[in-house]
């Protein structure tokens, strides 16, 4: 473990995680809205927002999958020190990190069981561009309709079609975050 | 002019102050020390540790004092305290075969290796009030002492097991689910059931076990062995690379030998019931092993006869006295909003019925 692995966590975990959770809750409860998520400095290629989301939600009881270029010794070391989360394959993960391309095929991730739809993965997807534009969203949490710049629309539509099964997504870009729960329906304009 | 009742905050503060005063009682009587409770009300301390799921006699004594001797309230205090404690790690399973024995009896064999050790038991006392204790008591006659045998005392069940007369209980390496860290999921496996009933309410478990003896899911239990004593608790220290003993706990273990199963292809064998409880908690350990055995009907290919003690969902959902007492007593809280809704509904239904009745009367009169 490198000394870098020991830095970049929350300075005041109870307060920072509370504030971070409220942003993530707002993002998940209002798909299409974009929120700031700061307070930690994870090693690249993890974004600040992805690092904060992990610190807020993951711990030794949640297996994490590092996809593609995310799986570096620095990221592994940082996760081991700050989260203690076990690293696993895509099929067993509670949380998975990577770019949309890294995470393919997303059909590998847990979508819950018909009697326990909550036992599903949350994908923390790194995107280069996160704006309230593009595909049209509607469903719970959205008054009328919203828009969000999203990758992989056919796969996300297929995911929504499985409701109440499906994975849920957090999209991170630098210090910003938006979310897409499985309940959101997507329409290409 | 009506003014709505206010001052909930002051009422609560006053109630708490009065409670503290009542707890202390007559100031002319010396205050109880935790040491007195721990040493002289040890069976209460044991029950609070067992159902509170926290082995700490001093904290249990404090809880009993604070709860004015209400053991369910004391158990609740302990549970609420333990839930905030960080989980630093898990111990190795304790080895009851290595127990330093205070008491060990078998009802199935007259004599056996290791012997019958009666220990400090109420069993053969005559239940006559001892007024010498009321008269500020005198120091009891010291008990006779004997040198404990350094040899481990083998389990009775092992003797039956060697001859294949009882169902095998293979050792597994699996980590059992943790009832305090994951929501109860049904159906449960045996490990989870045992976790739930070892901290279950003693009275509830006693009555369930008694009901099996009276025919509601009968399992013909014999006490194969009941042992009470202390065992070492060992944890792995990753930095050292080996495990060390961090202390010892007093446990009561009960293993029952129950009615046999068998089939055309399988020779008949006795079956097992198991109980393990913190402290000297004999009644609870025996009840636990009877209820454990009754809950195993499915894996042993028996019929579900509809007995409460066989019904896993019924037993596990209702055995916890902290849950039960909270929900039972919450009906003391105001419910006037729901009551008002019911009141209005009832008035409307009565109004409709009366109107219909008077219409019918009017029609009949025409």
């Amino acid at each position: 473990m490198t000394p870098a692995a020991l830095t970049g966590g929350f300075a005041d975990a109870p307060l920072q995680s509370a504030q971070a959770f409220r942003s993530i809750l707002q993002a998940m409860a209002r798909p299409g809205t974009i929120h700031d998520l700061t307070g930690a400095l994870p090693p690249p290629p993890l974004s600040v927002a992805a690092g904060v989301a992990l610190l807020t939600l993951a711990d030794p009881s949640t297996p994490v999958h590092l996809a593609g270029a995310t799986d570096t010794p620095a990221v592994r070391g940082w996760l081991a020190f700050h989260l203690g989360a076990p690293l696993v394959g895509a099929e067993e993960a509670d949380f998975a990190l990577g770019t949309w391309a890294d995470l393919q095929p997303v059909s590998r991730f847990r979508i819950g069981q018909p009697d326990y739809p909550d036992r599903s993965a949350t994908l923390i997807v790194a995107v280069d561009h996160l704006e309230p534009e593009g595909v049209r969203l509607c469903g719970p949490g959205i008054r009328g309709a919203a828009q969000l710049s999203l990758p992989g629309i056919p796969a996300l539509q297929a995911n929504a079609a499985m409701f109440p099964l499906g994975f849920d997504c957090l999209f991170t870009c630098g210090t910003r975050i938006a979310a897409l729960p499985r309940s959101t329906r997507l329409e290409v304009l | 002019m009506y003014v709505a009742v206010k001052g909930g905050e002051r009422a609560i503060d006053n109630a708490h102050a009065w409670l503290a005063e009542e707890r202390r009682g007559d100031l002319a009587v010396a205050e109880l020390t935790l040491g007195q409770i721990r040493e002289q009300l040890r069976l209460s301390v044991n029950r609070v540790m067992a159902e509170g799921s926290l082995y700490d006699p001093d904290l249990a004594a404090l809880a009993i004092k604070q709860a004015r001797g209400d053991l369910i309230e004391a158990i609740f205090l302990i549970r609420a305290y333990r839930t905030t404690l960080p989980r630093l790690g898990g111990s190795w399973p304790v080895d009851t075969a290595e127990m330093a024995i205070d008491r060990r009896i078998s009802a199935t064999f007259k004599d056996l290796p290791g012997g019958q050790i009666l220990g400090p038991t109420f069993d053969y006392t005559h239940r006559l009030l001892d007024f010498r204790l009321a008269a500020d008591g005198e120091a009891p006659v010291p008990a006779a002492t004997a040198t404990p045998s350094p040899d481990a005392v083998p389990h009775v069940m092992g003797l039956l097991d060697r001859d294949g007369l009882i169902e095998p209980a293979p050792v597994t390496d699996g980590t059992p689910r943790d009832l305090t860290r994951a929501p109860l999921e049904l159906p449960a496996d045996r490990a989870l059931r045992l976790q739930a009933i070892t901290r279950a309410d003693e009275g509830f478990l006693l009555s369930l076990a008694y009901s099996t003896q009276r025919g509601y899911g009968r399992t013909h239990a014999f006490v194969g062995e009941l042992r009470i004593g202390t065992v070492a608790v060992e944890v792995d220290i990753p930095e050292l690379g080996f495990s060390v003993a961090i202390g010892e706990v007093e446990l009561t273990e009960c293993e029952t030998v129950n009615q046999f199963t068998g089939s055309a292809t399988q020779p008949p064998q006795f079956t097992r019931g198991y109980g393990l409880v913190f402290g000297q908690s004999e009644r609870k350990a025996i009840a636990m092993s009877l209820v454990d055995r009754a809950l195993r009907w499915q894996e042993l290919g028996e019929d579900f006869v509809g007995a409460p003690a066989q019904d896993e969902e019924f037993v596990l959902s209702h055995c916890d006295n902290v849950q039960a007492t909270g929900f039972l007593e919450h009906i003391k809280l105001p419910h006037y909003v729901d009551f008002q809704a019911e009141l209005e509904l009832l008035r409307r239904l009565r109004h409709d019925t009366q109107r219909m009745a008077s219409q019918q009367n009017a029609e009949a009169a025409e």
Partner: protein
Amino acid sequence: MTDTAYNFAYLDEQTKRMLRRAILKAIAVPGYQVPFASREMPMPYGWGTGGVQVTAACLCPDDRLKVIDQGADDTTNAVSIRKFFQRTAGVATTERTAEATVIQTRHRIPEAPLTEDQILVYQVPIPEPLRFLEPRETETRKMHELEEYGLMHVKLYEDIARHGHIATSYAYPVKVEGRYVMDPSPIPKFDNPKLSDCPAIQLFGAGREQRIYALPPYTQVVSLDFEDHPFVASRAQHDCDLCGADGSYLDEVIIDDLGGRMFVCSDTDFCTTRRELGHIGRLGAPMTDEVA
């Protein structure tokens, strides 16, 4: 002043993470009850432990917390829970619905419309809407999986056959986004219409039963009914005797032993605010400093 012997908002961080994960899954599947490893809290089960855990997982230091029981801020259990969070989280508290960012409630939805800046946390005793029709969790879980809600309709219809009305006046079951049947907690059915299309986030916590469920903002929530017996939210026959409001939910107060009674808003903040604005009911008096 915060009690430094405990972590912020009482719970340890690992417990809060567990709760937060459950809340997010509950948001993602509206109306579905997510199992969670409920902790023993320093108040008894059945006294709001689920709501307290959900509130503890959501609270931020800059929140302004309101706690109500039966619509009132000064009922003893509401006072007790509010004090708990003042002590363990050091958050500001308020009785004003409009000023609150987090509202924990038992048995009511405030009369004042909620906003996008608010979270409403419900205390739930029995989260399973099918529980009194089928006591077994293993069975009700299957019924939700298969959307087998016929039993609930049969029960409601039997009411109509016997009484001419659906005889459920509180904890009236709803269907969420056309999928899960949900228990809205024991709110009077008067409050049911406020569940739907609500700008605030609504979270439901059942501590003893170990379940969390949620309604994201603007979720479509429909009270179960029949074409020939549509759902009707109950409506009081009276105006509030203190503030004169004609559309609020009223408590009936017995004022003497001769059958005399009066009706007052169950939502104490709503009533106070109206009286401060000069509204006076049948038995009310103008607000003065000493009454306030």
